């Protein structure tokens, strides 16, 4: 487990860190952050036990919208995470 978690993290950095990369590769890599964040986020708020969870009972999904608003307005990690926690907490009390 140590080896298989270590290699994917270390090899690309070590190999690519000292190389000039083709323009298209750099462009492709530049989309990775937005893509990976969205790929992690969507299932975390829209899936439960392996199926789509679209319901007013889905606290994470409802809390997502005000959290997105705070994120957009403040662009600040601390404000957004604390705001998100407060929204989530209030929603848990209401529903």
């Amino acid at each position: 487990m140590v080896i298989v978690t270590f290699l994917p993290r270390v090899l690309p950095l070590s190999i690519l860190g000292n190389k000039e990369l083709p323009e298209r590769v750099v462009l492709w890599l530049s989309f990775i952050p937005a893509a990976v964040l969205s790929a992690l986020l969507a299932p975390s708020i829209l899936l439960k036990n392996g199926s789509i969870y679209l319901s007013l009972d889905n606290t994470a999904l409802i809390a997502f919208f005000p959290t997105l608003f705070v994120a957009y307005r403040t662009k600040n990690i601390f404000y957004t995470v604390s705001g998100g926690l407060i929204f989530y907490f209030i929603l848990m009390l209401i529903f």
Partner: protein
Amino acid sequence: MSQQEKKIDDQDYLLAKLNDSSLKAGIKDAFPIILGYLPIGLAYGMLAVNKGLTPLQTTAMSLFVFAGSSQLVAIEMIAAGAAVAAIVAMTFLVNLRHLLLSASLSLHLRNLPFYYYPFLGFLVTDESFAVSMSKLESQKNKQRYFVGLGFTAYLGWVFSSAAGAFLTEFINFGSGGALDFVLPAMFVVLLVMQISSSSEIIVAVFSGLLSLFFALVIDGSWNIILATVLAAFLGVYISGNS
């Protein structure tokens, strides 16, 4: 240079290192990550002990493997009596997405001595990657920022899983409640900070939808890597046409 002068010089150097703003900024930015790791680490620690690992084994796995979802999957597989090879293969698949993160980080952590990379690489996680990608640009010393960020988050992970493992006999934490929302909320703000063009919005929406789709049709954590790779290609395609 006299002995005296040299001593003062060393002191200045040490002070400069301690006051390094990049390192400090990295450590400070790790705190939201630690807050998000806390419920997951506690849950992992308690689960592992409940499934038969000792608290020491549980902590050692966090110390050496440092990969939340893989560790949770491994615990389930160990409890189900899976073969070692199967556990290792599964871990590899779950962590393959780090290939992309590490390759993408290499755009920022460039031209360092080769012995830096194992340390920097070990600290690559979804969270340290995401935070550093939105902050690295403005840092003077990028590798030091990344070490401050990644290592602090690493300590948070080891500590919270140890707390879960050692305290599980005494306290029942139950579910994380609102803390379950820390990491999703962090992904939201990091995503917003990442996005600077309309093609990135399209890529993000497409990636989220693909990730959901693959999660529904394929078992294991393939959805994240598949969605990311395809959505990034879409981004290149859109940029090429505009």
